[in-house]
């Protein structure tokens, strides 16, 4: 008899190959398929439903390199029941994965333009694959600028990579934290204050933003005031999810489904919905 459960609803088992500590509450796990499958192709910005058996399932963005599909990577911050359970797992443990789901960042569409990536907190995780893609095809883009805000210096993700990226002549990386003590020599303030400090060609710039909604709202304002058009601004939205495949309606943002139409949206397509109280 044929199963009536749609295939994308069945989690596939993945084993934790390595677990890397990013901050006090955030880890990156590297996963490999338990059945020796070749790899896990995905596009930058997509997410998986990650299932801790017996606990629950949550949407988590894929934070690895799209050109290395063999290694599936997720960076997870522990905030509640399931994310805490994910971070309790150890190398060798198995969890379930459904995906990849959702839309992706306009990596190809941005070719020939300057690119500004604005990330806040854990929002750097879904944007890291974009940076890998840009770096691997560096000559196809104009300026590449990363603006990254976090709570404190201790909360910065991917510190080693940030240092490497900052050391390159062909990337502009600016990091800022909300507050700092003692020996921090970097910027302090909110990420929006970095925007007046950068130079780019507003008519030929694509911006990609991911972070808490309030941070995205003020970032949008600042980018618009610098002349970037709404159709060239992309945001990643978060909503509660259950099915991940547009069946249950949990993730609705007005008439849009974040799991299928998003999480990455062109701002021009959702500007009426963005920041609305009733939604």
């Amino acid at each position: 008899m044929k199963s009536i459960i749609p295939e994308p609803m069945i989690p596939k088992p993945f084993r934790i190959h390595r677990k890397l500590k990013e901050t006090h509450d955030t880890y990156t796990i590297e996963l490999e398929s338990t059945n020796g499958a070749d790899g896990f192709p995905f596009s930058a910005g997509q997410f998986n439903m990650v299932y801790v058996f017996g606990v629950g399932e949550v949407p988590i963005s894929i934070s690895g390199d799209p050109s290395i599909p063999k290694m599936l990577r997720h960076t997870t911050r522990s905030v509640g029941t399931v994310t805490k359970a994910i971070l309790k797992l150890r190398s060798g443990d198995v969890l379930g994965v459904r995906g990849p789901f959702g839309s992706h960042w306009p990596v190809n569409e941005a070719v020939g333009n300057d690119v500004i990536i604005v990330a806040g907190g854990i929002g750097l995780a879904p944007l890291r694959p974009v940076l890998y893609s840009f770096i691997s095809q560096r000559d196809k883009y104009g300026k590449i600028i990363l603006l990254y805000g976090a709570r404190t210096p201790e909360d910065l993700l991917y510190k080693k990579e940030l240092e490497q990226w900052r050391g390159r002549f062909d990337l502009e990386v600016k990091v800022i934290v909300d507050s700092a003590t003692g020996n921090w020599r970097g910027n302090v303030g909110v990420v929006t204050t970095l925007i007046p400090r950068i130079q780019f060609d507003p008519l030929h710039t694509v911006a990609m933003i991911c972070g808490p909604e309030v941070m995205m709202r003020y970032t949008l304002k600042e980018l618009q005031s610098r002349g970037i058009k709404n159709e060239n601004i992309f945001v990643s939205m978060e909503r509660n999810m259950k099915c991940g495949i547009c069946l249950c309606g949990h993730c609705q943002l007005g008439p849009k489904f974040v799991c299928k139409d998003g999480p990455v949206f062109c701002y021009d397509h959702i500007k009426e919905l963005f920041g609305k109280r009733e939604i």
Partner: protein
Amino acid sequence: MQTLEPYLAEHPFLEGLEPYQLKIIVGCASNVRFDAEQYILREGEEATNFYIIHQGKVALEIFTSDRGPITIQTIGEGEVLGWSWLIPPYQWHYDARAIEPTSAIALDAKCLRAKCEEDHDLGYELLKRFTHVITQRLEATRLQLLDVYGVH
């Protein structure tokens, strides 16, 4: 002798001033340099200048007895440091420390206040510009207070 006029005339903070107003400001301006770690101003001291940062980076700090100095904002190239010179009792509210070798243009507060009293048009122009800086700072502070990256 090269004057500061060309640099100040191009600076966005002073954009749109009448040439005579710019001349007055140049008359109150001087070049200054600070080494990394050098304090530029200290909480409670008289606000004798404000600064337009030319190069480098400055940390605004509050000193706490339990956690030491806490940086609440950094100010970099092209930005304006200090507005306490405008508001009585003209005392700094924070410490400011250069965290990189920093060059700046210092604007003499007493000189400027006197000129603004004499010429209210100049005073109004400067107030408008400082109100903008203060509003931006207030907005940023509100966002910082929201602690948007915390778990809520």
